[in-house]
């Protein structure tokens, strides 16, 4: 059998691509579709006698009435709002600092990225120790040896929620900074020179040159961080287990508990689908609304 060279090349390309496509279908599309399928059934692992009846949208109706789920949805949204907002702010500051040329910049750049490089489970454990009420660094920094005034941070619903935001901001600001830095480096130096010649001061240069041209980079950072924030799991798992009094219960953690601890495959999948839909909607919103307005005007 003989094939033309180009046909053979095409075949080879197809052969190389097929595993990749298969991989995406098997590990990305199939689980999403399967979760959706499961969410339409009533499945209780410890009660096989119930069978796995198709219940249509019943799980979704339950979800709408489930106070704990709605509470964790609110928690997740608030978490995303606060942590992403702060991360973009700090990310911008970090990017502006490490964009400047100064002695030791390489070391500073590497140092700033360390929090991002540490696995979240480890950082969560670290922050759990920092917020500890007896030997935590925070209490020691605030009150020194005055043990009587120590606060049990993670025991207070408000503080505990603040604590997971702080831990997330500490970890992810550097990542936002990295994305924004990439944007900064794409801004031509001549624009600043021109602005300087026109008599613009530092603040004006930042407002009129840097910020507008950084918008695409900021948008990307915003998009990545919001999607991550909506899927937060490990911080909560290690630091608070959703407590106290459900103050830090987030959707992913709630769904995990339903599926793996309680064995409610159907209902737990419904929660996963909700996380997927919310994340997807957030991404679409950013790209559509912010994105087209931004890029549309420029084009």
């Amino acid at each position, binding site marked *: 059998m003989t094939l033309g060279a180009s046909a053979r090349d095409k075949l080879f390309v197809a052969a190389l691509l097929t595993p990749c496509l298969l991989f995406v279908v098997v590990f990305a599309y199939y689980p999403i579709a399967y979760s959706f399928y499961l969410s339409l059934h009533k499945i209780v692992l410890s009660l096989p006698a119930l069978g796995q009846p198709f219940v249509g949208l019943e799980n979704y109706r339950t979800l709408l009435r489930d106070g704990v789920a709605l509470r964790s949805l609110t928690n997740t949204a608030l978490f995303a709002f606060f942590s992403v907002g702060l991360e973009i702010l700090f990310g911008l500051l970090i990017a502006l600092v490490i964009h400047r040329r100064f002695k030791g910049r390489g070391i500073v750049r590497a140092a700033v990225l360390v929090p991002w490089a540490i696995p979240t489970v480890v950082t969560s454990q670290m922050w759990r120790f920092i917020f500890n009420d007896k030997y935590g660094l925070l209490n020691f920094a605030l009150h020194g040896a005055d043990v009587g005034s120590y606060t*049990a941070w993670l025991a207070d619903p408000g503080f505990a929620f603040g604590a997971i935001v702080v831990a997330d901001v500490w970890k992810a600001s550097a990542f936002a900074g990295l994305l924004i830095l990439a944007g900064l480096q794409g801004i031509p130096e001549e624009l600043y020179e021109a602005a300087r010649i026109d008599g613009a001061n530092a603040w004006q240069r930042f407002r009129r040159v840097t910020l507008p041209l950084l918008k695409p980079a900021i948008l990307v950072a915003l998009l990545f961080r919001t999607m991550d924030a909506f899927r937060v799991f490990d911080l909560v798992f290690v630091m608070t287990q959703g407590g106290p009094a459900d103050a830090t219960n987030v959707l992913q953690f709630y769904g995990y508990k339903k599926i793996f601890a309680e064995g409610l495959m159907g209902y737990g999948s419904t929660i996963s689908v909700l996380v997927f839909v919310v994340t997807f909607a957030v991404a679409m919103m950013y790209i559509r609304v912010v994105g087209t307005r931004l890029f549309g005007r420029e084009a």
Partner: protein
Amino acid sequence: MRRPGSRWGRGLLAAVIIALSVFALSCEKKAPEGKTVLTFVTWKPNQPEVWDEILAAFSRENPDIDLRREVGPHSSTAFHDLLTQKLKNKSTDADVFLMDVIWPPEFAAAGWAMKLDDRLGEGERERYLKGPLLADTYQGSLYGLPLFVDGGMLYYRKDLLEKYGFEPPATWQELVEQARTIVRGEAGEDEGALYGYSGQFKQYEGLVCNMMEFIMSNRGTLFHRDTRKSGIDEPPALEAVRFVRKEIIGGVAPRGVLTYQEPESLDLFIQGKAVFHRNWPYAWEIANNPERSLVAGKVGVTKLPHFPGGKSFSTLGGWQVGISSYTEHPEAAWRFARYLSSPRVQRLLAVRAGLAPTRKALYDDPDVLGANPQFERMKGVFLAAYPRPRTPLYPAVSHVMQRYFSRAVSDPGVDIAKEAERAAAEINDIVSLSP
């Protein structure tokens, strides 16, 4: 792709794949001639050498069985995930396994654990403590053999109690008063150096265990077995929860206990910062180990207090041996399970690993008591220990209770009665799902 090198590369890749599959095939377990392969699924033990010894002895005495051990995670929750995945898939390579005390009803209802009614005779059952055996029973049938038992108990500072002329407290009110007096007397200006009580009040399973002890010692209950309704919204239970919120959390115990599991609460005690401490039997060895504990030799242990008119109560913990319904070797599996639960193995576990036996007779055994003098006093606790609500949906029930208790004791503004009513309704809904 026309370079000879790439052809070489692909040839090499193919060779590696073939080699790997041959290797994988050869790893397929092959029983030695005439031997029965038996797989034992267990968690990662604290004392691996003791378990090696136990399994080696069984293999020596049962040459016809090829015993394999699969070691899972140490944490009960993670081990549950691994084991139930296997059983859900009807895997045949989990012949014998360990079950936490709250799992038998779930495993029984799901059809994962084998019924042992015909195998364990009435006379043999008499020899076990009542609580663990009850935990292994679901709808009148037995699904596991008790291996060792855990129960909540009260550790206290012998030296401090003596100094102030106190006997270990019989009621919770006494505990609070003694703790207050001692803390006030000891602290001087150094506020916060000593607390009255430490326990486990984080939002997790341990919170349910702690709260159950308060509630049952006030003649309340979490769950009525006969009517299958939750009892957490009834007056004795509400009263106990109110007591915890008012007198324990931020009272004699620091507010930080709301974030404590066993290790953190034990830390407070062994650093000499708490007068009273609630924990499981394992804490005895640590609290009296001079290398780990600042209060070694000053620690006493006794039954948990109760409310006036109630009886001391201890939440039952511990582990069971179960046999899979999907095993291909029920006889060999039974032989092994029985061996694990035998007086001989239980004695070894008690003497060498400090685990409390489930067989009554061992509490009079000189070897066991020689190694664990505290068992003498713990016996009463274990005899009175009682399992948590037994339903195949226990994990879901537990989560509702964890949420309710966490809200009720951490937030002084919460209307306990109203929250309890809501939680009880939710529990009743869940339980009504199962037959």
